[in-house]
């Protein structure tokens, strides 16, 4: 049985087509990433799969239960961390957790021990009885995650869990996600953050304008675009480097200046390294460092979402 199954999900808001028939499935225990720009349809997908809104076409299943017809049993299995940290700021962290637990019908003893546990894992123990009005953004986010876990879900939906947070909150949250994965919890997370998807996810779907552009493991997605490997070179006199000359090197398909380094895009890194050496000799420059880089998930993302066609990135 799949943890999640989406079959041609479609959602229209008036004339806006938010989802144009997306299909995918997530296996039990998998961490599945939904990577896409603003307005791609990530939140809409979560809202449909959690039964908060109904699809205008297609269907969805959570552990085999239809998200429209068997909404309530399906929801019992899941935890949801909404995009906005929706906590009650007039209540304390503890009261927020207790309320959520009651809503999910978690018994008294269980909810109390679980809440203490979650507060400690998410670094909020010291603020347990404080009103959450004064919490920082990161603390609110962590409490929202604790609330999403209070019913011990088998499947957790995380809508941009770490967006806009500092390093410390980020690390705590990633740690919690990895711990859940070890416990066998299935995770569906949306993000704009490519690195996060790369680190956390077993598989990633790239979604753009309501359509899925690709679904695969991060590594295999990168392999699909081997032609965008690159070489990063730093010269001793960055000011004297002429991008046109570098672009003229055989096999170079693009040049990007990145701080004091230059990035040369190519399908054949060894040949280009030779060319760069020749160029440095001719121009009387010394190479300080030279690195080859494989395609990043970002490159895949840019390629698949068509962002590079809009003239971004400075590729000639």
């Amino acid at each position, binding site marked *: 049985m799949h943890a999640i199954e989406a079959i041609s999900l479609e959602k229209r808001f008036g004339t806006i087509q938010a989802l144009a028939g997306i299909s995918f499935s997530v296996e039990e225990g998998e961490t599945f990433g939904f990577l896409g720009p603003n307005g791609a349809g990530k939140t809409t997908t979560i809202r449909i799969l959690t039964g*908060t809104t109904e699809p205008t076409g297609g269907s969805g299943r959570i552990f085999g239960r239809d998200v429209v017809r068997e909404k*309530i049993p399906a929801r019992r299995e899941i935890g949801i961390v909404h995009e906005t940290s*929706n906590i*009650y700021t007039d209540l304390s962290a503890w009261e927020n957790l207790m309320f959520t637990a009651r809503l999910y019908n978690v018994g008294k003893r269980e909810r109390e021990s679980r809440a203490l546990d979650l507060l400690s894992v998410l670094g909020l123990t010291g603020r347990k009885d404080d009103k959450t009005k004064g919490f920082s953004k990161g603390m609110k986010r962590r409490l929202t995650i604790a609330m999403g876990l209070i019913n011990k879900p088998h499947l957790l939906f995380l809508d941009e869990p770490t967006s806009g947070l500092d390093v410390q909150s980020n690390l705590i949250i990633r740690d919690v996600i990895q711990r859940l994965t070890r416990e066998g919890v299935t995770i569906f997370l949306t993000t704009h953050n490519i690195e996060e998807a790369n680190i956390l996810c077993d598989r990633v779907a790239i979604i753009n304008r309501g359509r899925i552009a690709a679904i695969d493991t991060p590594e295999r997605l990168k392999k699909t675009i081997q032609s965008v490997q690159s070489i990063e070179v730093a010269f001793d006199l960055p000011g004297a480097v002429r991008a046109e000359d570098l672009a003229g090197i055989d096999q170079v398909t693009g040049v990007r200046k990145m701080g004091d380094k230059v990035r040369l895009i190519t399908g054949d890194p060894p040949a280009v390294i030779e060319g760069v050496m020749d160029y440095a000799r001719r121009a009387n420059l010394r190479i300080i460092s030279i690195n080859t880089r494989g395609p990043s998930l970002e490159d895949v993302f840019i390629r698949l979402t068509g962002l590079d066609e809009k003239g971004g990135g400075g590729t000639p």
Partner: protein
Amino acid sequence: MRIVSEYWREVCTGFSAAWAIARKDILIYYLKPNIIVSGMLFPLFMFLAFAVGRPADPATMVPGLIAITILFSSSSIEPVSIPLERRTKTFERLLSAPISLHMVVLGESMSGFLYACCIALVPLAAGMVLFKAPVSDLPALAAGIVLLSFCFATMGTLFAAYPTESPGDIMSMLNLVRLPLIFVSGVFVPIGEVPFPGQVIAYLSPLTYGNDLVQAGFGKATHFHPLLDIAALCIAIGAFQSLANRLYRTFNE
């Protein structure tokens, strides 16, 4: 048999979740200043506006005071709390919880209901102690207070279905309905003296039947049989509940 016990379990968890929602509203909203103003002070001033300068014995006005106090206090929580929770997105939490929408509506109404039941004790006590208004039919009075509170609390939840994030929008729509009801429902002006189109509205207004029950509680002449009042209020509650359920579903895109 298993299906029955499964169903029963669902009903029980539904009610306990509804109570959790009501409890949360009690903790958060009962002491908010704007709710105190609209729930307690508004009916008091309304009453004074009618009572001052009238020759009538204040005791005869006690049932009417109780009825309008309930009208205002019961429908003063959800029209504030729900739009605010839409704004902070906490309402989305309720909509995505493993409970039916009916239980969300019920839970929301429950906080207004309990609020009104408590506030109604103030004019009741004042009436009995200060004005020596005698209670002659306690069951009718209790039924009146309870059903009227529940009915208008559900009406408050119904109005709050309108998808806005601003309480003012809902309050102004609500007042458009609440204020005229006071005039036609026999609270201060007997139904028989209300001009014709008003009388039609009076027969449709739950306040008419609730007020009638409270009047019966104080041994006043009534318009309908108390059982008819009770039936009418129950029908109104059912209608508001199912309409609210439908609207929340429709507006929740």
